[in-house]
């Protein structure tokens, strides 16, 4: 900032100091608007962060399953070429093709079977075992998801190491159904994961293909992203090669979409109060220019240009906006602090255990970018509100202004 502009700001502060009460009211108007905006967005961001964190902790965020997609009306299958392309995407740590099929047990339990290479099971799914271990490549060993394992043990007495007969219903050339039986050996039960793999039976990819699955290409591709921050770019990459990505990242996308709407909607109302603050500045500055007509005329008589006059008036607006923005940020932080201190326990006491988690967390999340945005918005709006009074002041006729007696 050049020194002359700095002096204009000093003059602006002194001019504002002459009209303390009116200036305080104007600053309060701006501050309330900024506080409303900061508070609203902080609340929205707090809820968003809570929801995203909950999804992250309760699900396997970096796991993506790429399914056949559609480009126009054409189905894009998961071919080996696409599988290789997806595996080579930046941010992909490991990938493995899968085939899916439906079988039944002799006890009439329907079982979703997922065929995956043995190394893919370990590299991509990162399973931990409640009992037993993973299957060997080329064997008829299988791994059960936590929920399926418990179900089969409880209702059919299936145990690790005991043969399990899977029945697949097929149809002959005349359309008559017939059943094919396959014997597999459960060698492991995975710990609960909180996703669809709790319900499935995992077997070697070649075994699943041998059972007649995957005749029209792979059912999908399991992809492990390098980290949570890479998930969304990997998902975009998968879409780019014509496949359809699925995973818990979609929940985060859905939460983000919803919270964007909520924050924008609430922000509009908060913005309206900020707009009122802006109108107050315009009103204050119009009055100020009117009251100081003679001073503006004197400034012009001693050499101030129209630009100088505009700068002087706008400097006052910027000071009003800056102080209002700072005060608004402080109020916003205060609002968030009170909400975080009292809101969580209140919700927990009203709605019980469902909100117990809020006791230790922040409902409203105030960030530096948010505070900076609040401040810049206040200053920007103040400058905008001051444009007309500043322009009007700069167009004064110096002779008439000096004669005005104001």
């Amino acid at each position, binding site marked *: 900032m050049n*020194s*002359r502009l700095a*002096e204009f700001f000093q*003059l602006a502060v*002194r*001019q504002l*100091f*002459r009209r303390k009460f009116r200036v305080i009211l104007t600053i309060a108007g701006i501050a309330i608007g900024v506080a409303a905006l900061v508070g609203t967005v902080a609340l929205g961001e707090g809820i968003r962060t809570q929801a995203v964190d909950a999804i992250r902790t309760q699900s396997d965020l970096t796991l993506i399953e790429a399914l056949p997609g559609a480009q126009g009306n054409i189905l894009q299958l998961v071919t080996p070429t696409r599988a290789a392309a997806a595996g080579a995407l930046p941010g992909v740590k490991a990938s493995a093709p899968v085939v899916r099929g439906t079988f039944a047990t002799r006890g009439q339990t329907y079982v979703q079977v997922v065929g995956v290479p043995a190394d893919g099971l370990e590299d991509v799914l990162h399973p931990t075992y409640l009992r037993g271990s993973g299957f060997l490549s080329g064997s008829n060993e299988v791994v059960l998801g936590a929920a399926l394992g418990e179900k089969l043990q409880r209702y059919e007495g299936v145990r690790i190491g005991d043969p399990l007969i899977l029945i697949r219903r097929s149809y002959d050339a005349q359309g008559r159904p017939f059943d094919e039986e396959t014997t597999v050996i459960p060698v492991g039960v995975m710990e609960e994961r909180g996703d669809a793999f709790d319900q499935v039976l995992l077997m070697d990819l070649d075994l699943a293909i041998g059972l007649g699955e995957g005749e029209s290409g792979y059912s999908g591709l399991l992809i492990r992203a390098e980290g949570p921050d890479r998930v969304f770019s990997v998902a975009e990459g998968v879409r780019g090669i014509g496949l359809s990505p699925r995973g818990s990242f979609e929940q985060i996308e859905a939460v983000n979409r919803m919270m964007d709407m909520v924050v924008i909607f609430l922000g509009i109302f908060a913005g309206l109060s900020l707009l009122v603050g802006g109108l107050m500045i315009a009103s204050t500055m119009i009055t100020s220019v009117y009251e100081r007509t*003679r*001073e503006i005329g*004197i*400034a*012009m*008589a*001693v*050499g*101030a*240009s*129209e630009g*100088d006059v505009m700068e002087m008036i706008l400097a006052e607006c910027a000071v009003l906006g800056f102080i209002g923005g700072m005060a608004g940020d402080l109020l916003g932080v205060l609002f968030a602090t009170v909400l975080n201190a009292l809101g969580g326990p209140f919700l927990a006491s009203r709605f019980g255990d469902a909100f117990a988690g809020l006791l230790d967390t922040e409902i409203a999340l105030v960030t530096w970018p948010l505070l900076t945005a609040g401040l810049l918005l206040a200053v920007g709006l103040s400058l905008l509100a001051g444009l007309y009074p500043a322009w009007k002041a700069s167009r004064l*006729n*110096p*002779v008439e202004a*000096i004669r005005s007696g104001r």
Partner: protein
Amino acid sequence: MSIPLLETRALSRHYPGGVRALDEVDLRIGKGEFVAIVGRSGSGKSTFLNIVGGLDAPSGGSVSIHGRMLDYSDRRALIAFRRQMVGFVFQQFNLIPSLTASENVEYPLLFNYRPPAERQEKARQLLAMVGLGDRASHYPGQLSGGEQQRVAIARALVADSPLILADEPTGNLDSQTSEGIFSLLQRLNRERQVTLLVVTHERELASYADRTVEMRDGRVVA
């Protein structure tokens, strides 16, 4: 005769309704002259001063400073002219109430992009010269009328403008203080060689000037 500092030719100012505030005024003022313009209210004195000072534009005729004609259609040129060529002293003093005496004096230099240290030093010297060295940090509201006008005179001198225009500088002052102000103006004219064009309706005070010009109904009559 050498080129005058200020020369007006057929300078006119007409207002809607046929009012002729100035009617073809021809006037030449040499460098270092102290000229008083006298006349009754409405004779066109202040209008003449405002046009010569670049605050108002004429309806016809021309104003030349150092032989160069002032272009009233060029706003930038007019601003530069007001910054560098003229200093104003008004009847109402017209100081900025929120600025101290010293800050009021240095105010014009703010628009001339002069550094603060230079401005402050110049204001200090000028306030000492007009006898207000010890009142530099006082606000206009804390000064008497005569003191305020002295501050205004110091302000008019601060940009080293060759021409000082004073419009009824003693109109709001008692006779003793008025004598003091004219005496100060005379001293400044002699010591600093500034050219002074002072409007007054008091003929006794006009006697401080080297030359008196009388205006009546927008014309120079003597």
